[in-house]
């Protein structure tokens, strides 16, 4: 069974009386463990697609099946639970909670999903922070971190609950190319080590080199979908 199946997904936004079609019939299947990039020009519908997949929004028509469950059938509460346990989000603008330290931002996600013992919780958070290269910065607040560091906290937050799927909407758009490479490598590493499925959007061609599968979107439709030969190998 595939992790994700999208059938005939359409999304129309209403701007006053004007109808804005953002997605115009998307069919897509994503397997578990895939590292996929969605790219395309601005306004092509990348964010809209990711929001549908992440159960943040509902399509105007079409069916999304996530791990065998049809999203259209689920209540608001069920969707929240699905997000809580199965989906990690990384946003372009990090969206960390400014009053919490790097550690606490990550801790928040674990607290929501796990009722483990304090010590275990702590070890898990510290491990994931170390894995994204933030050792020693745990006690810093977001405003005391660089953009790349913030994005790593966001990645750690998305990964710490070991979700089936991580969605990253232009995770490197605010980063310089050096930092963006670092952040992407962290994601690739996690994909390889934990088998987490990643879908991220970008319009940076340099970033696309990291993906095992590339999906191009134009005007709300998939215009190209190709898999890279073999596994991605870091240079």
């Amino acid at each position: 069974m595939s992790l994700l199946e999208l059938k005939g997904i359409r999304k129309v936004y209403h701007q006053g009386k004007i109808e804005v079609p953002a997605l115009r019939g998307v069919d897509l299947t994503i397997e578990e463990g895939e590292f996929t990039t969605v790219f395309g020009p601005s306004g092509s519908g990348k964010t809209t697609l990711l929001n549908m997949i992440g159960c943040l929004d509902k399509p105007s028509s079409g069916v999304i099946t996530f791990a065998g469950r049809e999203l259209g059938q689920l209540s608001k509460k069920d969707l929240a639970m699905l997000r809580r346990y199965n989906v990690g989000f990384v946003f372009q603008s990090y969206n960390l909670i400014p009053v919490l330290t790097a550690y606490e931002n990550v801790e928040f996600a674990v607290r929501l999903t796990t009722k483990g013992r304090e010590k275990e919780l702590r070890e898990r958070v510290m491990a994931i922070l170390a894995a994204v290269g933030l050792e020693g910065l745990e006690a810093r607040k977001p405003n005391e971190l660089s953009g790349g560091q913030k994005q790593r906290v966001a990645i750690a937050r998305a990964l710490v609950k070991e979700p089936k799927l991580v969605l990253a909407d232009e995770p490197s758009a605010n980063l310089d190319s050096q930092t963006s490479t670092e952040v992407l490598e962290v994601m690739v590493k996690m994909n390889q080590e934990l088998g987490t499925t990643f879908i991220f959007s970008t319009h940076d061609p340099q970033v696309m080199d990291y993906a095992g599968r590339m999906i191009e979107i134009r005007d709300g439709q998939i215009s190209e979908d190709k898999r890279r030969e073999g596994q991605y190998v870091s240079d």
Partner: protein
Amino acid sequence: MKFLTKIAFKNLFRHKLRTFISIIAIAFAVMIVVFARGFIVGMIDSVFADQIQYYSGHIKIVDREYQQQERLLPLNYPVDGLAGQGLNEMMDSLKGIENVEMVIPRLKFGAMVSTGNELVAMSGWGVNPIQEFQFTNIEDQLVEGRMFQPGQREVVMGTGLLAKLNHQVGDKVTILSNTAFNSLKGVTFKIVGRLASGLKLLDEIVFYLPLDQAQSWLYMDDQSTELLLVTSNRGLVDQVLPEVKELLASRDAEERYLALGYQETSDLLPYMELAKLIYNQIYIFLVLLASIVVINTMIMIVKERTKEIGMMSALGLESKNILQLFIIEGGIIGIIGSLLGALLGSIINEYFAVTGIDFSSAMAGFSSELVFNSIIYPVSSTANTVFAFILGVIVVTIACMIPARRAAKLEPTEALREI
């Protein structure tokens, strides 16, 4: 939930000034509630206490005719016993009723003194000093000299009255009164003490003298104009009054004497109880008003944190968790503000409970017959402080529902798109 509380708490420090202003607004309102409530309870308590001590006792027994003409202080409708058995026997019988602690006779009459160019009208209160001092706080109001003693031709009067008479403690004064036989008779007394009670009636109209002196002066041996019954607390009146009436009936005196509970002796008292209820509504309104500051701040906060709220939904928080987050945040403001206000308010009350607040200049124009003390002592009570605190917390928390619901209703995608 614990983590939400932690976040809510930390959020309070994001804009310290804003939080501070919200807290101050609540604290101020709660402080006013504590103070106003202490003041009003103090005022009402003092009205009740004065009414009971100086006018009605817990139960007042008078002749029915006397009651009709009370303002004239007539002497021809005295209380002089049951079935001709004398006043003392009547007092003893009344004392036999359960929960009646004291039976106090008072002989009130009109009198006057000539100051040379003018006649000063006054009201004499012949009382039994020992009982009277036990029941009322009149002895505490003595500011000069001493109290009168039974068997002596001594009077004690208020500062205002002494000034009108142009006399001082130690002076002798000749007082004229109409006796029970309708003859004018003057008696010379020594002024042994001066009172300053804050009650206009006692200050400017009344002079105290021993009951026996009044009785012999007015030819009213073994008589009084009224009997006051004192129970151990005023709550017992409803229970004791029927028994008093029964006793009067069993002695064939119910036609003649009237027994009145203290509540029946004043038109004012029922309104006082009503006022307390009305004020309680006003307090809620007052705190609600201060809550507007908090609501306004929280609406701003929700707007500012829209993206954060979207992110929390993405993390899998339900709407109800987001509602909780903001209610906790507002609740903490409510708790801190209310606590601060309740403490400040009770400190203020504590202070004024001792010193009192003097309204004598504001009340200068009031009628002297009104038993209404011009110095009001706010009551500082734990119950009051706790009431105001809880009121503050509840009202603020409920008020926070408005902005919190806004936050909870945000669609995650809408929230995340905010710049």
